């Protein structure tokens, strides 16, 4: 204690009447919060070590534990909040850049919560998805301008390579290394069972998972870790990662301590060396360079795989998207500023980028205005939290959404935002064998499948309510949306009207 002491944010509350000293909490906490004092036959805890991951709360068999805000506060100040003060103290102590994990938790508007959906009444019928077919299948990829026919007048399939999905949701890029083998296995198996795709992220593809290739997007990021011809050809699509919503303009850094064993082999870098992804791709300093990479990747894969270009939603996202739509890429993925990360500088995460709802609405409209919307499909990510968010995103103009955080939550993540510490008690964002085994893929993949099936049911219910029985009739159907509590400018950008209009 001293000038650098910061009072713990959380307090672990133990109900002594319910605690049976089974010590599950002690065994399950990698942060060593709990301790059993045998001489007193009682459990004690050190709140200062607690990251509020809820592992102990979830596993306690007698409901004896809960975690609450500690309530310690500085003299109230609307300008200097507790968080601001603590962060300042921490930096004064360490001289370091503040690190965080997962998406921006700050109080910016969540536009999905200010958009309401429509339903049919009287003038046209709603459709019951339990009685009538309700189609959630989507196809991602470019659409050519014209049809072609052979000499007999039969249409020739001139579609560029497509991704076919049973529903407009995919698991977004999370690298092997940033998350565990078991997390990857859960995602891959769930994607296969669901008929959707998961994304390798930038860490390459573990050899065990090549069998899920038809349900895999292989990513090529600025570090080019684990990229080789077999890798590129193993997936259903290739994604060039230009940016990430949680850290636009920033590269990545996986510390050498995590580059062990299979991760080192999969990334094709020596054990113990830091995996540093540069901020830009050093062969892409402009849009014409991107075009070259797009075509290089297409050439390597015999023009059989669609190429996705993923960017962070930044201020001039429309112009960037327009450039990408003319680059030969088949799909644009846009990641909003709420998008997650295994580690990101706090200031970047909380201050750079724009909300995905606004980025999506303006990109979709811009590409239509330029007449190039058919050149590309649009995937959006960056905090899609429910089936309602999916429906709203599709109605705004997205072809598909990416979920990362939501998927991890199905695997057990409780949003403690401590991934960068590498001691994930849920076995997700860690490489310690004692921790990774906590995620059994049999359970993990089942929970992912459950979540997606639940969302699919809800999406169909909402579509049916609107009298729509195919997802393509929802896409860009902004008259199904109304804003609530939004100003004229926000409504204009979203391209929707206010509730009551």
């Amino acid at each position: 204690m001293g000038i650098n002491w910061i009072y713990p944010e959380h307090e672990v509350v133990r109900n002594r009447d319910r605690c049976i000293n089974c010590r599950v909490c002690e065994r399950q906490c990698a942060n060593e919060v709990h301790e059993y004092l045998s001489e007193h036959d009682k459990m004690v805890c050190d709140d200062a070590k607690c990251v509020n991951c809820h592992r102990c709360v979830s596993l306690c068999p007698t409901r004896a534990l809960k975690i609450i805000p500690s309530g310690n506060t500085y003299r109230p100040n609307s300008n200097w909040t507790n968080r601001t003060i603590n962060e300042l103290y921490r930096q004064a102590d360490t001289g370091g850049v503040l690190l965080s994990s997962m998406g921006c938790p700050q109080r910016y508007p969540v536009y999905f919560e200010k958009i309401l959906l429509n339903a049919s009444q009287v003038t046209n019928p709603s459709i019951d998805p339990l009685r009538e077919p309700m189609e959630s299948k989507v196809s991602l990829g470019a659409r050519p301008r014209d049809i072609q026919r052979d000499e007999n007048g039969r249409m020739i399939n001139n579609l560029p390579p497509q991704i076919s999905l049973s529903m407009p949701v995919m698991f977004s890029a999370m690298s092997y290394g940033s998350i565990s083998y078991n997390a990857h296995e859960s995602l891959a198996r769930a994607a296969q069972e669901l008929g959707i795709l998961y994304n390798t992220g930038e860490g390459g593809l573990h050899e065990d998972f090549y069998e899920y290739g038809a349900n895999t997007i292989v990513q090529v990021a600025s570090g080019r870790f684990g990229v080789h011809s077999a890798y590129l050809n193993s997936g259903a699509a290739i994604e060039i990662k230009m940016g990430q919503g949680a850290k636009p303009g920033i590269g990545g850094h996986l510390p050498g301590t995590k580059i062990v064993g299979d991760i080192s082999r999969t990334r094709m870098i020596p054990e113990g060396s830091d995996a540093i992804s540069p901020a830009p791709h050093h062969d892409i300093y402009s849009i014409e360079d991107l075009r070259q990479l797009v075509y290089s990747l297409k050439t390597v894969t015999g023009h059989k795989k669609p190429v996705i270009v993923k960017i962070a939603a930044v201020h001039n996202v429309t112009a960037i998207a327009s450039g990408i739509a003319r680059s030969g890429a088949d799909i644009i993925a846009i990641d909003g500023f709420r998008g997650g990360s295994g580690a990101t500088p706090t200031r970047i995460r909380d201050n750079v980028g724009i909300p995905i709802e606004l980025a999506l609405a303006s990109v979709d409209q811009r590409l239509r205005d330029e007449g190039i919307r058919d050149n590309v499909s649009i995937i959006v990510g960056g905090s899609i939290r429910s089936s309602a968010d999916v429906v709203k995103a599709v109605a705004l103009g997205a072809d598909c959404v990416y979920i990362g955080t939501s998927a991890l939550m199905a695997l057990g993540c409780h949003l403690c935002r401590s991934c960068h510490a590498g001691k994930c008690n849920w076995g997700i964002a860690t490489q310690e064998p004692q921790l990774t085994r906590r995620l059994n893929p049999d359970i993990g993949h089942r929970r992912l499948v459950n979540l997606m099936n639940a969302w699919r049911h809800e999406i169909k219910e909402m579509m049916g309510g609107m009298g729509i029985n195919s997802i393509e009739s929802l896409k860009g159907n902004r008259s199904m949306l109304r804003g609530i509590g939004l100003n004229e400018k926000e409504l204009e950008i979203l391209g929707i009207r206010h509730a009551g209009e």
Partner: protein
Amino acid sequence: MLREGQVRIPSGCAISGMIDKSGRRFCGEDIIKSIAVMHDRSNGLGGGFAAYGIYPQYKDYYALHVFFDSTAVRRDCEAFFERHFDIINLSKIPTRKMKEITDEPYIWRYFVTPLPSKLTDSQLDEREFVARCVFRVNTQYDGAYVFSSGKNMGVFKAVGFPEDVGRFYRLEEYEGWCFTAHGRYPTNTPGWWGGAHPFALLDYAVVHNGEISSYDANRRAIEMYGYKCTLQTDTEVITYIVDYLHRKKGLTLPEISSVIAAPFWQTIQRMPQAERETLEYLRVMFAPQLITGPFSILVGHEGGLMALNDRLKLRSMVVGEQGNMTYIASEEAAIRVIAPQLESVWAPKGGEPVIVEVEHGN
């Protein structure tokens, strides 16, 4: 109140159509009788007709039917026509004064052909040139509205019950090989003549009963291809989709029906390979042109008539045949009143098109 184009106005309706596939021309009396039977399906806020084969003497000229709010705008608009077209004939469209039809605008008719020099300069084909001129008038000349622009065909529409509209336009004095009719039940229109149906572009004229749920998806997609949905009605966007797929993309009518009332994926899955591949291709290629929600439409065009229901068949539509005549209407009664004896009568399935091609030799 906001009128069509300023606000989206849904409406329920009645439709009727009849065609002689031999190309024999018959008078417009029958279509009035037919639509009159379904009086209760309209509410007096709009009715109209499309008639094919009615201008044989001018069959090589585009017949522009135009509403003008004032003489001033008519003069401006005529100046525009003169800059772009050779006007071979112009006149007021003959009407009959009657108490049921009021507040009529100035209703004019022009038979035109594009000026060769203008057409060459535009680097467009003739029909695209005409279509673009129609869009320009409708978006840039406030108070002028071109509501019919095909060859050897014409649309006649007004605010009122359809049978009154028919008599107002003296439809019984026209002879054609195909007529379609529409009675409108809009839920909140102030009653603007341009908002009545059929909706037409070039020789495509659509009458529609229903309220599609895919409207804005369809609108935003079709507007990317140069169309402007100025009326914000279902019929308008359906007409543009048909025009886009038929005229611009060269799809056949059966292919068009497989796009706008596409079979379900589960149905496609069970089909023989060749057919399955074609339908899968069409669904992916023209996904934004899928129309969902209830509709029954009649699409008139220079080659004949197509009738189509949405794929769940959420609106009634009946077909009857007698000799060379095919009748299609929202209710069987509207057919029986013209042709009490029918060789066959049936209700087409959802998504199953009824296509009648006319033999133009006659």
